[in-house]
C-alpha cells in the first residue's frame, strides 16, 4: 500500500502514456520528453532551494526573487564581460548573498519569514526592472554537450544526455542533495533542526549556524538555477523573466514532500504537461490561443496544491525562529 499514493499513481500514468506515445511515434515523443526535461530541471532545482531551507526550518518564499536576480546578474555580467563563466560565478555569488540576507532576517532578527521572503521578491523585481537595459546580448549560451556513447541510447540518450553543462550539474546537485539529506551527518542534523530544534541544540548542534549555512547554500543553488535559465536555456533576459517559477517550485517542493527526488518527479510531471501541450499546439490537434497554453503550468500548480493540501507534513519547526529556553 505504501507505494500506491495518488502522486505515485500520477507518475505511473505519465510514464505509461509516454510509453504508449513512444510506441506510436518514437521521434516526436523523444523530442517532447527531451523538451519536458529541459523545462523540468530549473523548476526542480528551484525546489531544491526551498527544500534546503525548509528542512532546516526556514520558510523561503523568496525563491522567485533569487531566481530573477541571479538570472539578471548572470545575463548582464556575461554581457558586460563577454564571459559566461563570469556570469555564472556572479549569479551564484548573488544567490548566496540573498540567502545570507534571508538568514540574517529570519535567524538573527527573528523576522516573520513570509515577510522576509517577500522583501527579497520585491527587492528583486524592483532592482532588475530598474537596472534592466534593452538590447544587450551575450556572446553565446552554454553549448550543448552530448555525452559520448550514452547519447546513442534510444529515447534516454536525447532525453538525458544531450544537454548543456549546467543541466548535468543541476541534476548532480539534486541527486547529491538527496543523498546528503538522508545519508550524512549534515542531513541528519539539518532535519533535526527543522523538526525539533531544541533536540538538536541540547545534542550540541548549533541551530543558528546550521540554518545560516543551509540557507546560504540554498541561495547558491538558486543562483545556479538563474544562470541555467538565462545562460543555457533561453539566452536572454527581460523584465519578469522568471514568470513565477520560484512559486511553482514551492508547490513542487510540497508535492514532492520535501524530498529532492519527489520534487524532481513532480517537476518532470510539470515539464511533461507543458511539453505535450506545446506539441499538441504545434501539431494543430487543438486550436486554442497560445495564451491558454501559457496559463497551463499555473493551473496545474493550483491542482497539485489542492491534491497535496493537508496530506503532507512539513518540517515541524518550519517558520519558527528558535529561542533557547530562557534561563
Amino acid at each position, binding site marked *: 500500500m505504501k507505494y500506491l499514493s495518488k502522486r505515485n499513481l500520477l507518475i505511473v500514468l505519465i510514464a505509461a502514456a509516454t510509453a504508449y506515445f513512444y510506441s506510436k511515434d518514437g521521434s516526436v515523443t523523444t523530442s517532447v520528453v527531451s523538451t519536458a526535461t529541459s523545462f523540468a530541471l530549473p523548476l526542480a532545482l528551484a525546489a531544491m532551494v526551498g527544500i534546503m531551507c525548509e528542512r532546516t526550518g526556514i520558510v523561503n518564499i523568496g525563491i522567485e526573487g533569487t531566481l530573477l536576480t541571479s538570472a539578471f546578474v548572470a545575463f548582464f555580467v556575461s554581457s558586460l564581460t563577454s564571459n559566461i563563466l563570469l556570469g555564472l560565478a556572479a549569479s551564484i555569488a548573488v544567490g548566496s548573498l540573498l540567502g545570507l540576507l534571508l538568514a540574517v532576517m529570519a535567524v538573527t532578527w527573528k523576522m516573520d519569514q513570509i515577510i522576509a521572503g517577500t522583501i527579497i521578491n520585491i527587492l528583486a523585481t524592483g532592482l532588475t526592472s530598474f537596472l534592466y537595459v534593452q538590447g544587450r546580448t551575450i556572446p553565446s549560451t552554454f553549448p550543448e554537450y552530448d555525452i559520448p556513447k550514452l547519447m546513442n541510447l534510444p529515447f534516454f540518450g536525447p532525453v538525458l544526455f544531450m544537454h548543456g553543462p549546467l543541466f548535468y550539474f543541476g541534476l548532480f546537485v539534486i541527486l547529491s542533495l538527496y543523498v*546528503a539529506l538522508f*545519508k*550524512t*551527518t*549534515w542531513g*541528519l*542534523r539539518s*532535519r*533535526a533542526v527543522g*523538526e*525539533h530544534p*531544541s*533536540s*538538536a541544540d*541540547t*545534542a*550540541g*548542534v548549533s541551530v543558528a549556524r546550521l540554518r545560516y549555512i543551509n540557507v546560504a547554500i540554498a541561495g547558491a543553488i538558486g543562483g545556479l538555477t538563474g544562470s541555467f535559465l538565462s545562460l543555457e536555456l533561453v539566452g536572454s533576459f527581460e523584465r519578469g523573466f522568471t514568470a513565477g517559477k520560484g512559486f511553482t517550485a514551492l508547490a513542487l517542493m510540497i508535492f514532492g514532500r520535501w524530498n529532492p527526488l519527489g520534487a524532481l518527479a513532480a517537476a518532470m510531471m510539470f515539464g511533461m504537461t507543458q511539453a505535450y501541450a506545446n506539441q499538441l499546439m504545434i501539431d494543430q490537434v487543438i486550436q486554442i490561443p497560445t495564451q491558454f497554453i501559457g496559463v497551463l503550468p499555473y493551473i496545474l500548480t493550483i491542482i497539485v496544491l489542492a491534491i497535496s493540501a493537508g496530506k503532507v*507534513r512539513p518540517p*515541524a519547526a518550519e517558520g519558527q525562529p528558535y529561542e533557547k529556553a530562557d*534561563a
Partner: protein
Amino acid sequence: MSDLLEITGLTKQFPGVLANDNISLTVKAGEVVALLGENGAGKSTLVKAVFGLIKPDKGQIKISGNVIEYGDTAGVIAAGVGMVHQHFQLVPVMSVTENIILGDEPRRGFFINRQSSRKQVIELSKRYGLEVDPDAIIEDLPVGMQQRVEILKALRKDVKLLILDEPTAVLTPQEIDELLLVIRNLAKSGVGIVLITHKLHEVMAVADRVLVLRGGKAIGFTSPKESDEAGLAQMMVGRSVVLRVDKKPAKPGKAALEVRGLQVLDDRKLLSVKGVDLTVHSGEILGVAGVEGNGQRELVEAICGMRHRVSGQVLVAGVATKDMHPHAVHLAGISHIPEDREKHGLVANYSIADNLVLNQFDQAPFAKGWVRNISQVNSNADAVVEKFDIRTPSAQNLASSLSGGNKQKVVVARELSEDLKVLVAAQPTRGIDVGSIEFIHNQLIAARDRGAAVLLVSAELDEILSLSDRIAVMSGGEIVAIVDSKDADRNYIGRLMAGMKA
C-alpha cells in the same frame, strides 16, 4: 568518595523573587539525591545554575572539583553531567537510533555509519538493561519508552551525574515503577543522580538523601530512613501562616453545578479525569485541592466546554450543558476564570475596555443588533476600573500593558457579573502580588455571599483552606475525598494529595 557535585551557598535573585537562597548541596557517585519541593520552590533555578545557564548572585558550583563558570554549558556536559528533560528533547519523526546518535554520529567519511550506530544503541541498551527497538520511530512509541530513549541519550555520553527533571510527570504508574528501578540500577553502577520531583512516594522509594526546598530556601536534608511521607509533606508544604480571609459561614442553597461521572482525556489522549462526581451548591465555595497534573486542568476545561467530555454530564441548575461549546456553557450560567489568563483570559492587543466585555460584547447594552455601543463599553470600563482598583492610566490602554495582578483583576471583574450563577475559578491568584490576591479572595467570598456557586481549583493548599467551605481532594484523576473545611486537617489533606490512603 569525592563529591561529583558540590554546591555551596548558591543565591539567585530574580526581580521580585528570591529563587535560591543560600543553598548548599553535595552529590557523591552512586548516590540518589532527591530535590523535593512544590512548584516555584526553586528546583529548576538550581539545575539551570548547575548547567551554567543562569548566573548566580552568590555561591559556587563545582563538578568533580572544578568550578563551573556561567555560560560554559558545553564544559558542564563534557564534565559528565547529563540531563533528562521533563519535555523530551527528541525528534518525533526520527528513529530511536537517529535520536540517540544525533550530534555525535558514528561516521564513515561524510556518511552516517548506520550499522555501527545501530550496534552502539543495542549495546547501550543492553548495558543498562533498558530495552528499546533501535529502528522504531519516536512518535509511534509510548511516553515511557520515549523517556527511555531520552535516558539512553544522556547515558551515551559517559555520564557521571544524571539530573532527572520531574521524570515521572508524564508516566503511567507501571512506567514509574520501571523508571525507579532504572534509577536504582544506575546508581548501583556508580552514577550520581539528582531526582527533581514533588512526588513523595518516589522519594521514599528511591532516594538516599532528600533536600527539601520551599520558597527558594533549603528547608533541610533528610532521608527516607529518618522520615516518612507525612514528614516530607510537612517539610515540603510548610506550616506557614494561612492567609486569613474573613468570611461568614456559608448558607448553601440548591445544587447549582453538578458534575456527573465525568471522564476526560488529556493532551496525550490518556484518561486524566476518571469519573468525577461533584456538586456545588449556590452560596458555597467548593475547593479542589491537589498536586498539579492530577487532572484538575482537564476537569476545569471539560466543565467549561473547552475540552471534550468522553462521558458524563455537567449540569447547571439541573440542566445539562453542551459539550465542547464554551459559549453555550457560558450562556448556561458558568463563568470561568481560566488558569492561563494570557492565553484564555485576555486578548492582549485589545483595550482593557474591550477585554471587560469579551463575554457579552454582542449583548445589550453593549450592542444593538450588529452595532456595538462603544459609549456603553467605555462607561462600563471606567466604572469597573474604579471599583476593582485596576491600576491603569486609562481603560483604553491595551490589556498587555497591565501587570499580572491587574490583568487578573480584569478577568475577575468580567466574569463576576451581578447575576452570577456558577463560577469556576482555576488558579485565580497564580503569580500575582499579595494585594491583588487579597482583593480577589474577597471578591470570590462576595460572589459566594450573593448566592453564586464557586468551584475553586488551586495548587495552593493555603488558598483552598482559607476560602473553601468544602474541600474535594483530587489525586490521580479522581476525587479521593470530600471534607468539610471545618474538619480539614492540613497534614491529612497533604497526604491525600500525595496519593496516600489517608
